């Protein structure tokens, strides 16, 4: 539906190829394309314009080095650097100094505040050896208190609630008191979702902040947010002057241009990214990853994580053994195809790999590319599937008939399979390559298990 952004950029840069100099004239199309790409990634249109103006300025100032570098490549680099620069800055940790330290969480409805509160408690207790207390100050949403209570239990954090009290300021203050007298050293205050135009609710959160004087105030933004991210980020900042931003739902496939919009508008660091519904799916922010994601230049990290979710360790170990003995057979191959299929649409997976989008653009790669192979294997007898060596000419002919493909195709496939098998076998013999059997083996980190 959308052209991949890297395609757009590559298209734009094509117009620069073969030209030795970046000039006002030959840069115009590229700049426009970059701007369109950013807007398609949900970067605010005004920011996209300012950003590309800056890129243009930089590009024009770089005439001298152009002999060494192709203009297109130079442009990619300028865009990437500029994006990383804008979103990054010095790494900003979370301030949890205080007795107890108080963290206030705020944001729009449904952005992921309560979930993040639970994750942060988990993060602080596992990574920072803290003893966090969650305080439920959402007095509006049905079952908001129950939700936070469940999460607190899940992560083994303390919880403070006052189901009958409708005053968030009071609850927050008493929660801090409770922390002090019960040995909690960090208090995380979850609040109700609110719209920036809701005067009453914005006053409420400002009052909470004023009363509890948090060490850290975090603004939670859904990474799928569109052009409005700017308005909301600004309005919340004006009222509560937050210290940092949390980007949620990055396990989706949104380009996440809102990250740039928010950072550019308020200049506050993005401190955490939330990437799932489970409590251990919280990470610090990597500007390079985000820049690549916004530009659609492949997100190898997401690719790896997606693979990790799907390949299970047991299976990987079993395969590794078989490969080592050179016993990888058609059944194993079928299994691998099944695993790949589970990871999703093949083309979109390929697009996560940097540089792949260009290659896959005209290729008609869809999951049906596997159908052919599967139908060949399915036309084999169980014996043949387990023992690829058995396949002689008459067997191949029978298989060809069975799957309705011609003998050449059968031969080609079997040859490819043989080569693959040999290669995998060789790799297991190479030093340090023991775990090549299936992505699961090499990518295990035990992070993000499937729910």
């Amino acid at each position: 539906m959308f052209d991949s952004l890297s395609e757009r950029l590559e298209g734009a840069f094509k117009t620069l190829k073969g030209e030795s100099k970046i000039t006002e004239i030959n840069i115009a199309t590229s700049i426009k394309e970059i701007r369109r790409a950013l807007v398609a990634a949900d970067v605010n249109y005004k920011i996209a314009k300012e950003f590309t103006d800056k890129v243009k300025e930089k590009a024009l100032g770089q005439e001298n080095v152009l002999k060494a570098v192709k203009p297109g490549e130079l442009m990619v680099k300028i865009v990437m650097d500029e994006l990383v620069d804008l979103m990054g800055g010095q790494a900003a940790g979370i301030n949890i100094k205080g007795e107890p330290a108080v963290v206030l969480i705020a944001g729009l409805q449904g952005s992921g505040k309560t979930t993040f509160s639970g994750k942060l408690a988990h993060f602080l207790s596992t990574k920072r050896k803290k003893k966090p207390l969650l305080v439920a100050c959402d007095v509006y949403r049905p079952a908001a208190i129950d939700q936070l209570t469940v999460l607190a239990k899940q992560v083994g954090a303390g919880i403070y609630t006052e189901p009958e009290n409708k005053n968030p300021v009071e609850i927050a203050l008493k929660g801090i008191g409770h922390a002090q007298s019960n040995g909690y050293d960090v208090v995380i205050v979850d609040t109700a979702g609110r719209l920036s135009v809701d005067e009453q609710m914005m006053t409420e959160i400002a009052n909470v902040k004023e009363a509890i004087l948090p060490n850290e105030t975090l603004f939670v933004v859904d990474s799928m947010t569109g052009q409005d991210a700017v308005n909301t980020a600004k309005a919340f900042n004006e009222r509560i002057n937050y210290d940092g931003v949390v980007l949620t739902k990055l396990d989706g496939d949104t380009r996440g241009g809102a990250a740039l919009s928010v950072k550019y508008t308020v200049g506050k660091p993005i401190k955490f990214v939330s990437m799932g519904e489970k409590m251990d799916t919280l990470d610090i922010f990597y500007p390079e990853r985000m820049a690549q994601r916004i530009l659609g230049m492949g997100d190898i990290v997401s690719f790896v994580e997606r693979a990790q979710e799907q390949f299970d360790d047991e299976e990987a170990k079993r395969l590794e053994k078989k490969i080592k003995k050179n016993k990888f057979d058609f059944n194993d191959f079928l299994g691998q195809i099944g695993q790949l299929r589970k990871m999703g649409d093949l083309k979109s997976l390929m697009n996560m790999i940097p540089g792949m989008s260009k290659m896959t653009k005209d290729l008609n790669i869809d999951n049906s590319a596997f159908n052919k192979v599967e139908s060949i294997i399915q036309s084999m007898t169980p014996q043949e599937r387990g023992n690829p060596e058995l396949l002689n000419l008459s067997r191949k002919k029978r298989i060809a008939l069975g799957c309705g493909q011609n003998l050449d195709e059968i031969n080609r496939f079997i040859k490819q399979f043989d080569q693959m098998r040999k290669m995998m076998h060789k790799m297991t013999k190479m030093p340090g390559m023991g775990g090549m059997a299936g992505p699961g083996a090499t990518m295990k980190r035990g992070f993000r298990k499937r729910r």
Partner: protein
Amino acid sequence: MSFFNKFFSKEKKEDLDKGLEKTKSNFFNKLTKAVAGKSTVDEEVLDELENILISSDVGLETTVKIIERIEGRVAKDKYLNTSELNGILRSEIVSLLAENNTIDLEEFTLPTTEKPAIIMVVGVNGVGKTTTIGKLAHQYKKQGKKVVLGAGDTFRAAAVDQLKIWADRVGCDFYSKGMHTDPAAVAYETTEYAIKNGCDVALIDTAGRLHNKINLMKELTKIKNSIDKKLGGAPHEVLLVLDATTGQNAIEQATHFTNATDVTALALTKLDGTAKGGVAIGISDQFKIPIKYIGVGESIDKLQIFNKQAFVDSLFEA
């Protein structure tokens, strides 16, 4: 003005206006500025128009489409002033919304005359599925219908409790198997409950899920199939809930949820915020799925029937 009164009660229009106020003033001011003192639509005016549409999350593709249509119209008709351009714009967007041949509802009607009607509600995390179910149940209940809510989100913390509170608020029936049970079984049994107890409608909640999670999308298909197994032809409506603050990703959402469950209707929530909901125009343009409802607040009565003309009117009228 009078147009609105036909469709909305006074408070309703005020709600919508409140939400759209910012859009409206922005749009009108900018447009006026862009065309002030000019007698033809020049590049500058079109550029400004482009900015306005883009900033409402209409999306590049649809924006270009709208602008091309306007250029076409202007070349033919030769407009003279702001109000005429305004009129052209409005009618082009309305016609874009109308191209999917969907007729706006006039009231909260059930998707089928069969009894019970089964409505399954789907969408990504946090868009407002559960809230929309509560609000919709309230509308049906007000019409004297017997309603049951099925707690098919058995995953998210306190999801069942949340829906139960809504059922109590509405004063309708509630069916749950508790947390961490099989959602397909909940859907099946809710359907069964609705049949046995003579319900007019069952609204089945599902856990929020991001559309790129293949297994979760498969689960959704399974939930739908299990409803059909209990009652052939059901669910009669698969309502995809979209958040108006969402940008272009909403189009991906519509694509994937449609693939998994044959979505039959859309609800656009959180239009009471500053987000413009322009994504609705883009989606309506690309999918043949009607937008049926809009959410304009968190309380029980803040659900309205989507009306193309009214929606576009309120974007443009000062």
